[in-house]
Every structure is written in structure tokens, then in C-alpha cells.
């Protein structure tokens, strides 16, 4: 029982154990609950830091639990897993703090934070999964544990959104399972391996491999909200703001995009995937989703719905980067996993602040709000500029690498898609930002109740994530920046 064999399990347990504990906590013990939540999140972050240093130094962390005769439950910290773990662990801390403030005085908080922790535990399992079976187990756990959060408010709309969410995700899970079983029955148990786990002999099952790929990616595409499987995501925005953050940035859509990346690189291997001819359709689908999501976002009047369609579009950047052959586009896709997370979580926090403090839900109600809530709108502006791709906010790095990668791979049409998307992003974000800062206020806002413009539990996480979105763009050159880490991953995936 060394550190090397137990650390991945502990990263999982630091949210699983608090999750179970929180259910048993009496509703009114708010102080204890917050303490458990925050200290667990900090503990997880510390463990993650240890693993990041270790993996950078070449150490391996692996927990293997025998499950069935030839199948193990395997948790393993490779660089790609750690990218996702770090993102989720950091954003979990921010989102938990935010949720503490957001849910102040509302009922069923023990239940909420219980499921919230279980959700993050599932996400850790997804990130650290070392084979398809393990991935599937946690992927389904994520579905089940997010459902109570989506329907948390218990209103008719929330329940309806929950039904849509389940119909899509359970269906997607079943399709994914079919793919997993197919792979296992063809080739036996396979652990994820950089540059692809499929043995050379696998190439003779060409048709079966293509079918399995379609099933696997088709199942994952539901959570990644690829067109036409995206409809659940805008519906689910009825959930409370911290849940939206969880769905859009910390866990759910990320799990889909992360899974697609895993399947392409560490199951099939990028070369085999291209040989099978499945990557081009995927790239086209992703490109279409990018444009489609942006166009839809343009027509939404509700702020959170607009943000939701923006996510539909942005997640497909990751898939697009994965689907284009080459180191550069791979870096672009992988790094967007982090960049999109940071920027989108900021935007949803801001939307939550606006709704909580001033009751703003419609885009049109934002006029002049910059004067009343300058910090929140400042954070919002950073996020929006990042989404459009304005340097030095993180988003532009993604687009730069994606565009460069597309050129290198001989797919210049992708650059046109990126350009169109940037324009559309500008079209649905900039008027909003302009109105917020420069238009005359539509109504008289009530004065802030405390010293800050909004409850500090809400404001601090918002500003932190906004600052992080800036920082990862500005300090992209360092080894431990998301970009540096993405380069490390891409190098290993393409090494000869």
C-alpha cells in the first residue's frame, strides 16, 4: 500500500466520503456542512498537486481493483487524466464556495451538497479511469448523481428538464455500453495506452471497429452535446447556477468531450482512427455544431440559455481539435478542455450573481448593470472576450492552435469555421457587454445590502475564475500552465 497505488483512490474518496457523510447531516448544521465541503475540496486539491508533481517527474500512480475474471477497475493518473482532475478539483472548490452562498436559506441543502460531492467523485473516476469499463461505471454514476441536482428546485419545469436530461443521458449511456461490450468481446480487456491500446491484429476487424467507434462516440456525444444530441443542455439551465456551472464546466459536458478524446487517442490511437476514416465525419459534425450552437445562441433572449448554446458550440472546439490529425490541433483541443471550463464557469457565476442580486434573467435587462455591479460585469467581460478569442484571455490560444493545426493538416476550411464562429460569438456577446457598461440603466436597482455589490461567497469565486481565465492565457508559456501540460500530452500521443 504505497502512495503510488493508493493516491488515485484517495482523490476519488475525498469527495465520495464527504458526499455520503453530508446526507446524514441534519439540515440546519450549515457551519459543519460548509467546513466538510471546503476542507474536502482543499484536501483533494492538495492530493492533486502531489500527483501533478509526481507525474511530471515521471512517477506513475495506479490503483487496480480486480472486478471480474479478466476485467479490473483501474484508476490511473496519466498526464491527460491529471489535466481533467486538476480542472475539476479547482473548479469544485470554487463552485462549492459559490453554492454555499447561492443556496443560503434554501431547503434541502444536505441533499444538494451530498449529490454535488458524489457528482465530483464520479467526475474524478471518469478522469482517472484506466480502461473503458471503469470509465463507463463512473460515466453512469455521473448521470445518476446529477439528476437530483438538475431537478433540485422540484418545480414542474425542473422535473421536465430532468426528464429530458435522463432520456438523453441514459440513452447515450446504453449506446456507449454497447460499444464498450463490443470492444471487450472483440479484443478482450484493454487498458488505455498512449498512442492507442488496440493491438495491430485488431485491424482485421475493420467493420466491427467502425461500428464500435460510432457506438462509443455516439454515446459520449450526448454528454458532449454534439448536434443533434444537444437539446438536453439548454433545457437543463433551469437548475440553480452552481449546477449549471457543474454541467457546463466542471463535470458533465467535459466528461463527454474527455471521453471522446480518450477513445480516439488512448483506445483506437490517432493513426488507426484516421485510417478507419471515422475522423473526418466527426470533424465535420463538430464544425457544424460550432456554427449551429453560435447561431442558436444569437437568438436566445434568456441569458442562461444563451450561455448554454454557447457551450454547445464551445465544447465542439475540443472535439474538432481531436478530430483533426496533428500535434497542434490536438494541443488546441485538449487545452480548450481547461480554457472553456474556466471561462464558462465565470460566465455562469456572473449570470447567477445577476439573477440572485437583481433578478436579471433576460439579456435585455442587462442595460447599464455595469454601474451597479462593476466587478461582476468585469468578470463577465473577461469571460466573454475569452469566448470570442481576444488575447490575452485564454480562448485565443485555443483558436490559434486549432487554426494552425488545421492548416498544417491541410484542412483550411476549418479556419473559415473558426472565423465564422468568432464573429458569431462577438455578435452575441459584445452587444450585451456594451449595453451593460454604456447604456442607460433600464430601471433603478436596489442598493447593495452589504458592503460588496453581492454576497462575498458569490463574488470571490467569480473573480477568482475570471482571474484564472486571464492568467492561463498570459502565463501560457510555463510548463505547468494548461497549454504547457497539453503540449506534454500531445507530445506523448504523437511520439514515434
Amino acid at each position, binding site marked *: 500500500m504505497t502512495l503510488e497505488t493508493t493516491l488515485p483512490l484517495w482523490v476519488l474518496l475525498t469527495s465520495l466520503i464527504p458526499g455520503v457523510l453530508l446526507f446524514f447531516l441534519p439540515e440546519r448544521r450549515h457551519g459543519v456542512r460548509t467546513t466538510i465541503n471546503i476542507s474536502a475540496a482543499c484536501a483533494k486539491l492538495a492530493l492533486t498537486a502531489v500527483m501533478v508533481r509526481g507525474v511530471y517527474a515521471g512517477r506513475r500512480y495506479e490503483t487496480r481493483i480486480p*472486478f*471480474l475474471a479478466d476485467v479490473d477497475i483501474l484508476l490511473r493518473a496519466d498526464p491527460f487524466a491529471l489535466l481533467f482532475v486538476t480542472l475539476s478539483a479547482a473548479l469544485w472548490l470554487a463552485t462549492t464556495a459559490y453554492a454555499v452562498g447561492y443556496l443560503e436559506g434554501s431547503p434541502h441543502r444536505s441533499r444538494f451538497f451530498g449529490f454535488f460531492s458524489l457528482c465530483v467523485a464520479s467526475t474524478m473516476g471518469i478522469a482517472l479511469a484506466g480502461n473503458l469499463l471503469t470509465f463507463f*461505471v463512473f460515466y453512469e454514476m455521473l*448521470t445518476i448523481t446529477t439528476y437530483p441536482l438538475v*431537478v433540485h428546485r422540484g418545480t414542474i419545469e*425542473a422535473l421536465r428538464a*430532468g426528464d429530458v436530461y435522463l432520456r438523453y443521458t441514459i440513452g447515450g449511456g*446504453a449506446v456507449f455500453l*454497447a460499444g464498450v*461490450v463490443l470492444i471487450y468481446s472483440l479484443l478482450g480487456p484493454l487498458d488505455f495506452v498512449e498512442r492507442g491500446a488496440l493491438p495491430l491484429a485488431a485491424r482485421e476487424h475493420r467493420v466491427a471497429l467502425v461500428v464500435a467507434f460510432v457506438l462509443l462516440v455516439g454515446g459520449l456525444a450526448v454528454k458532449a452535446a454534439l448536434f443533434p444530441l444537444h437539446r438536453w443542455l439548454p433545457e437543463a439551465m433551469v437548475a440553480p447556477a452552481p449546477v449549471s456551472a457543474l454541467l457546463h464546466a466542471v463535470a458533465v459536458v467535459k466528461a463527454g468531450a474527455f471521453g471522446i478524446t480518450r477513445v480516439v487517442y488512448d483506445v483506437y490511437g490517432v493513426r488507426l482512427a484516421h485510417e478507419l476514416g471515422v475522423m473526418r465525419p466527426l470533424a465535420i459534425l463538430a464544425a457544424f455544431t460550432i456554427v449551429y450552437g453560435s447561431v442558436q445562441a444569437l437568438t436566445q433572449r434568456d441569458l442562461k440559455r444563451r450561455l448554454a448554446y454557447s457551450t454547445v458550440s464551445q465544447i465542439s472546439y475540443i472535439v474538432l481539435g481531436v478530430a483533426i490529425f496533428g500535434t497542434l490541433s490536438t494541443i488546441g483541443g485538449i487545452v480548450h478542455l481547461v480554457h472553456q471550463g474556466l471561462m464558462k464557469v465565470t460566465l455562469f457565476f456572473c449570470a447567477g450573481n445577476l439573477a440572485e442580486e437583481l433578478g436579471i434573467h433576460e439579456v435585455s435587462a442587462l442595460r447599464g448593470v455595469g454601474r451597479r455591479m462593476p466587478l461582476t460585469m468585469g468578470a463577465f467581460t473577461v469571460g466573454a472576450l475569452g469566448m470570442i478569442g481576444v488575447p490575452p484571455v485564454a480562448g485565443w490560444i485555443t483558436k490559434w492552435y486549432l487554426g494552425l493545426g488545421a492548416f498544417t493538416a491541410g484542412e483550411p476550411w476549418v479556419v473559415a469555421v473558426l472565423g465564422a464562429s468568432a464573429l458569431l460569438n462577438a455578435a452575441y456577446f459584445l452587444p450585451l457587454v456594451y449595453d451593460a457598461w454604456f447604456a442607460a440603466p433600464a430601471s433603478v436597482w436596489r442598493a447593495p445590502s452589504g458592503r460588496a455589490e453581492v454576497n462575498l461567497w458569490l463574488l470571490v469565486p467569480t473573480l477568482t475564475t475570471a482571474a484564472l481565465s486571464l492568467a492561463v492565457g498570459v502565463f501560457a508559456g510555463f510548463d505547468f500552465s494548461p497549454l504547457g501540460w497539453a503540449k506534454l500530452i500531445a507530445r506523448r500521443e504523437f511520439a514515434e
Partner: protein
Amino acid sequence: MSGTTPWISWTILAPLAGATLSVLVARRAVPIAVIASAATIVSVAATVGQVASAGAVSSAAGAWGAPLGITLRADGFGALMLATFGVVGPLVSLQAIGRRGGPRARRFLVLWLFAWASLNALALSADVFNLYVTVELVTLAAVGLIVVERDRRALAAGLRYLLLSLVGSLFYLMGVALLYAATATLDTELLGERVTPEPASWTALALMTAGLCLKAGLCPLHAWVPPAYTSAPPAVSALLSGLIGKAPYVVLVRLWVEVFPGSLGGGAARLLGALGALGIFWGSLLALRARRLKRVLAYSSVAHVGYLFLFFPLGTAGAWAGAAYVAVSHAAASASMFMAVEVVERSVGHDMLDATKGVAHRRPLTFVALGLAGMSLMGLPPSGGFVAKWLLARAALERGEWWWAAVVIAGGLLSAGYVFPILRGAFAPQRRSPELRRAPRHAELVSLSLAVVALALGLIPLRLMALLKLAGRS
């Protein structure tokens, strides 16, 4: 051998003695039942332990050897079923013990001990006639359990069950007679060696299989299932759906694997598989339309019987493990669900689908039980149901027969369709909050423990797999 392994006989004698004594000394029925149950659990555990360490064990009752006397034999499959009966059954019977021995609870306990003895005997029988006798005893006990509350609807359902079951037995018995005429033996192992492919043996197999399918409630012979499961008290439905419903299947597996192994994977086996698939779809669709919780669970049981029959067309070790795992995990999950329904019904006064509204906050343990057991029924990980479906789907694809895998996965989706509405109610707003009636606390705990068993089956499948492998028959 019989001298060194007395435990195997005690798994039958202990509950039988308990049943008899608690009839005789009615005033002390509950303590007697508790002692008998404890003794049975110990002997079951010892027998399973022996099988796990030494492989199959057998014992000749009355020291008479094979063709003449009654031989009890515990192989891996038998031990697994013993363990299932020995974990799920006593847990369910706890709810009666908790009621402190009213006349109903007494009747329930006596009948349960009798059923338990018969079930154990069935799991340990190694000849086709003994299997017939034990399956009959199980049926009789089941009829008694269905009418334990003595209400009119239950009486009608019990009678229907009894009549159909007798028809099934008749078919089975004709098959036994044919086999005996052709081979002059009833021992399954000897039969396996002597049966020759000729019309008489095929007719025997067909008759016996048809009779057992009727008893097991395989679609389209499931008409007796819903009335029986819905009119009996939930604790009885838990036993019926979880344990007693599996008894005919155990006999069927013995018959096909030990006496007619050549037929596995053949045309007749494919017909059984197709009927199983039909049952999965038809049962699930009816469950989707059902408006009462008990009805949902009854149809879900019909669907799960369907999964069991997917073993026959595949016939591989993997498929066998999968089917056995369906049997075990469904026993725990279904019993847990029925016990949770008992709590809901007693708290709210009815078992309509919306009865779960409000129960979640006031009876959180029951809700957790519903959630965990529901996951197992849906086949979502981590749960026994997931392991079962995984094994079945993989076995199907390994034989290249992808359609069975598609059936398994589609069945899981359909079951999500009928399980989630039950859970969904828990998050719905309450328009009015009626005072909940007092519900038995121990029923809640029983339901939760069974759900935890269903969950645990998904976490530690290796042990049970090892037990199954010991039989090594298929």
C-alpha cells in the same frame, strides 16, 4: 462422505423442524422461528464454505446410495442459490418477526420456513423426481403465502396460481415418466450419460420445459404473475418474485445443462431465448404503462425472468454466469423494492405511482433503498444488475450473436423508463402534505439492507464468480 458433511442435510432439516415446532407450540412461534432461522443460516454458510473450499459436496440421506436413495448434492450453482435464499429470505422474514407474533405473522413465519426448507432441498436435489417433489412443495408453500392475509382477491389469485402450477407439474411429471421409461434412472448425472437422441427424450424435454416455463412465468405464460404478486402482501411478493420465482428456473437449468447439454444453443434453446426476449420487452412495456407500484414491480419481474432465459441459446460459461447473476441480483433488488413499497403503502395508504411524493423527505431510508435497488433493476453500475447485464451482453457478442446483446441493453433502457418515475416522484413538489401514517421501521431497514446487498453484488462479483466456476458443468 455423509458422515463428514452433515451441514448439507441441516440446511433442510433445520427450517423444516422450525416450521413443524412453531405449528405445534404456537405461543412460542416467533422465538422458535428465530432459532430455526439462525440454525439454517449457520448450516447454509457452512455448506457454502465447504463448496467454496472443497468443490461440490454430496450426502446420501439415510445412507442409501445413488440410484435407490435420495442424494443431496451441493455444487457451485446450488451453493449460490442456497446463499441467495439464505440471505434474502431471512431478511424479508424479519418484518414478520418485528410484528411480535400476531396470528398473521405466525402463519407467515411457518409458511416461510416451510418454503425455505423446500427451496434448499430444490437447490440440493440431484435427481429429476426429487426436483419435481421439491418444486411442488415450493408451490404449495407459495400458495399458502399468497393467501396468508385471507382476503378475497388474494384467494382468487392464489387459486389461479395453484391450478396453473399444477398443470405445469403435470407436464413435468409426464416428461419424468418418459425419461424413466427410456433410461431406468432419475439421477441427473446418470441421465446425462444414458439419454440418447430419440423422439421419446425430445418429447420428455419439451414437456418438462413447457411445464417449468409455465411455473416460472415465462412470457407468454406469465398471466398468473401480476395478480399473484399484486394481491399478496408486499413481503410475500418479495419472496415470490425474489426467490420462489427462481425455483422452476433452477430445475430448468439442471435439466438442460446436466441431462440435455447437447440441446444448449440449438433450435429449441433459441426459441426459449426468443421467448425470454419477448418477455423482456412485453414485461417492460406493461411495467411502463402500470400505475401502481406493485404492478410495476410484478411486470418488471416478468421482464427479468426473460433475462434468465437468454442463457439457453448462448449456452456458454459466460452466459451462465450472467444468468445466475441476474437471478441473484434480481432476488435482492426486487425483494428490496417490494419491501420499500410495503413502507410506502403503509405510510400513504395506497401504492399508486405518486405515492412516493413526499416519502423521500419523511422516509429517506426507504428512498435510498428504492434508488439503490432501482439502479440494480436498471442495470446501472455499480450494482449486481449491471454485472449481470454486462456478462450476458459480452457472452452474446463473443458468440457473434449481437441481437441478444441488443435485447439486454434495450431492456435496461426500458427498465430505466419504469424505475425513474418512481424516484422522480420524490423530487416533485408536494401540493398538500398529508400526515404519513406510522410505518414499520424494520421494514425500512430490511428494504435498505437488501438494496445494499444488491449494490454490494456489483462491487465484489469475483467471489461469487469463483463459486459458480466450481460447478464447471457448462
